[in-house]
């Protein structure tokens, strides 16, 4: 059974919150005296009206009695991401800075899903308000729209478990606190802390206040929107690159783990955690290979090779997608390697996208076990993560996830080939959207002009981004017929 009234009610509340956030952004046009004020006011009003309407429809919901089901949770999550993106695109569209609705929607969902692909050709001409809203979409989407709003404003008092399960990043983990809304608040605290620290560090490295805040928002969210056309390359500053590398890496760690490290001082937990070890290992190995290759095949000296290698490998693995230089100018071996790195993603329970290190670890251990099984047919071969045996059902769901993920990359690849994009780039775009990175590979540079893509390509990209961000199953589940049957 789907409780439509509850679903309406929750969506209505979520939209009202979005309307409030939009209204706050109107501060920027007033402060800077720019022309996008009308866009924010209108967007906020429209969103508020729709939110009210949805709440009216769901007014008589007796959710205390009937309770939310898992289905309701999945619907709310999937629909709220789409609705948030539709209403979030209003400021761009109404203010006329992005006159085309498809483009405005693309930009917004690319923000919320922390992809960071932009259809804006000249970012630097945009008003401050829209730029800030653009970064804020990433920051809100980083930990998940529903998670963010529910954790900040525990307004429902019911159904949080279902909602969080539907929006979870990575396989299920142990809870931080018996009450999910409390753990949510702890995680948000870590998130805010990372963002503030990042902004302060960037400011100290010489970035302007407005740019520091924007880049900090997008770094903590592992999003990758920049306020400059050339991304981080604009600043041409080694210290800024190192600061961003560090915070990208930090944001890729499981936030529950970061909480224990930051607030309980349990640093050893980090190095006991299998996923973190894999994340660190993958990053270091990729950096090593890329740095060596750069040193050999480009004019970079050792320091530049390491800095560029580290920055771009981290940007790709954490699925942030900042660039400090156009890496497609490097030899194809290196950018194809980065193209491989796009699969991995950082840790579950972080803001990053991709497959997540935990799944990679389980996948590799399962593969190793298959070889053992040939030699020892009677052996019981468990997969252990952080010393705990992964139950077979969880192992299987990781395998299924991986198959779906690969299949979607290939479907996307063929789709983009069909609409006339060249072969390397089509692969890059498909994987980049699904992993929420926003960079691609190929002969046209890593930040391709997404605005040139055919309309159908843009819509398909938004679909891939959402599927990738909600970890494949949450979206695909809603598209299955059995989800809608009343039993």
């Amino acid at each position, binding site marked *: 059974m789907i409780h439509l009234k509850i679903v309406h009610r929750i969506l209505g509340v979520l939209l009202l919150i979005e309307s409030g956030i939009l209204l706050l952004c109107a501060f920027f046009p007033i402060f800077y005296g720019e022309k996008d004020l009308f866009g924010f006011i209108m967007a906020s009003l429209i969103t508020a009206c729709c939110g009210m309407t949805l709440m009216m429809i769901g007014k008589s919901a007796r959710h205390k009695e009937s309770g939310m089901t898992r289905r309701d949770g999945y619907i709310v999550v999937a629909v709220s991401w789409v609705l948030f993106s539709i209403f979030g695109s209003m400021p761009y569209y109404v203010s006329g800075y992005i006159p085309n609705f498809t483009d405005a929607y693309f930009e917004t969902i690319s923000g919320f899903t922390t992809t960071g692909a932009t259809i804006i050709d000249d970012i630097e001409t945009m008003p401050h308000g829209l730029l800030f809203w653009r970064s804020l979409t990433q920051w809100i989407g980083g930990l998940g729209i529903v998670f963010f709003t529910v954790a900040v404003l525990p307004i429902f008092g019911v159904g949080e478990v279902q909602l969080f399960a539907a929006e979870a990043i990575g396989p299920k983990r142990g809870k931080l606190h018996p009450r999910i809304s409390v753990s949510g608040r702890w995680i948000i605290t870590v998130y805010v802390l990372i963002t503030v620290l990042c902004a302060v560090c960037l400011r100290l490295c010489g970035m302007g206040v407005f740019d520091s805040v924007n880049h900090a928002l997008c770094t903590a969210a592992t999003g990758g929107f920049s306020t400059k056309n050339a991304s981080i390359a604009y600043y041409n500053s080694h210290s800024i690159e190192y600061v961003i590398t560090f915070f990208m890496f930090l944001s890729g760690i499981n936030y529950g783990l970061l909480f224990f490290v930051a607030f309980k001082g349990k640093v050893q937990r980090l190095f006991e955690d299998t996923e973190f070890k894999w994340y660190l290992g993958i990053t270091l190995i990729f950096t090593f290979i890329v740095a060596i290759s750069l040193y050999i095949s480009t004019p970079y000296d050792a320091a530049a090779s390491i800095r560029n290698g580290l920055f771009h490998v981290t940007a790709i693995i954490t699925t942030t997608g900042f660039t400090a230089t156009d890496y497609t100018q490097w030899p194809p071996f290196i950018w194809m390697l980065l193209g491989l790195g796009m699969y991995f993603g950082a840790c579950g329970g972080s803001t990053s996208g991709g497959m997540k290190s935990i799944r990679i670890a389980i996948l590799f251990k399962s593969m190793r076990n298959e070889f053992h099984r040939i030699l020892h047919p009677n*052996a019981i071969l468990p997969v252990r993560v952080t010393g705990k045996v992964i139950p077979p059902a969880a192992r299987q769901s990781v395998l299924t996830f991986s198959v779906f993920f690969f299949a979607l990359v290939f479907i996307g690849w063929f789709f983009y080939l069909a609409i006339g994009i060249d072969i390397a780039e089509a692969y890059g775009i498909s994987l980049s959207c699904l992993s929420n990175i926003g960079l691609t590979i190929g002969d046209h540079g890593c930040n391709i002009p997404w605005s040139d893509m055919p309309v159908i390509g843009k819509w398909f990209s938004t679909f891939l981004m959402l599927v990738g961000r909600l970890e494949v199953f949450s979206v695909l589940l809603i598209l299955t017929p059995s989800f809608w049957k009343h039993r």
Partner: protein
Amino acid sequence: MKIVIAGAGNVGIHLAKLLAGENQDIVLIDESEDKLSRLDSSFDLLTIQESPVSISGLKEAGAGNADLFVAVTTDESRNLISAQLAHDLGAKKTVARINNYEYLQPKNKEFFTRIGVDSLIYPELLAAKDIVDGMKLSWIRQWWEFAGGALVMMGIKLRDNAQILNKPLAELGKELPYHIVAILREGVTIIPSGHDTMQAGDLVYFMTMKKHIPHIRRIAGKEELPDVRDVIIMGGSRIAVRTAQLMPDYMNLKIIESDLAKCNALTEKVDDKVMIINGDGRDPSLLMSEGIQHTEAFVALTDNSETNILACLAAKRFGVTKTIAEVENIDYINMAEKLDIGTVINKKKIAASHIYQMMLDADVTNVKCLTFANADVAEFNVKEGAKITRNPVKDISLPRGVTIGGLIRGKEALIVTGNTQIQAGDHVVVFCLEGMIKTIEKYFN
């Protein structure tokens, strides 16, 4: 001395029998009348049919004025509660048997003392320690350390290739780096004197120091035996899990367990170094495919003593040099020895002797009950003016069946020979036939 034992399980009964032979006041509490009735008629002890966690039952058993209270039911929580209750009633020292490694950690010791449990005993862990020690020195059947490892005693099975066979001990030389404290021949324990000889097939107990171990290995003809690297354990019991955890990193372990559910449970308890195999450890084809020919040690730890003995025999046929069998049925121990199964592990004996040492006078810090040799090893601190200090050892008429193996003087370990003069303050290790400890105590006090 009044001793209350709660729980008439295997350990409890064995301990009760052991202590009853020592003329102590033993009270045994258990709920089961069956278990108690068999004991009551044949041993000199008092049985009380009550729950070990019942306050009135404990009062009736006189836990309030007990010198030692031992809780050894199979249930850890009941043991802890029972010991706590007894402590509150006034028992002087309480011991509880547990199944949880965490409880044994030194940092938790203070906690258990606070709640009234003075000592914890974990038979499976003790057994696992014995197994791992046995595999580290695979040519040795039994191994004890005294005084923190300064002195060691080893039981070695001599074969035809040993260099010291068929010579009276007195002719082996003076100032030897070892002292032969016992010989087990065809089930009979001999405490040897100068004219006894060693023969092929004897299990000989050497007392020596660690630095002389290679010398003993040579004279015992054990040099060509390989060190243990690959180990197969049959049966995924708790001892197996503990063994896996205590095993040094250079050893590779496979555990063969026939119950699939148990296999899955095992995976939760061990780490990636251990391979769990689902199958019957007695199946030769399975053993072959898991490489029994290249395995140096085979340990049988199923619940069934017969199975363990047979599996070890089968493993011997594959050429495994070190076999260890858990034999819980005490009657089989001698038979297992006759069948030439390497080391025999008996949880009850290990646990009971561990508790037994707690009961002995405060000066005695370690008594081990030897599985094979019907003998006890005790450590004493020699007191001022004790009988033993008056003459060199050879001139003191120690009763037959007692020999002094070695001593610690200051920080130095010494092997005791006939000419050794024992001094007050020495820490001596004495080897004697079963039940004689109380009678020899007077020589040292």
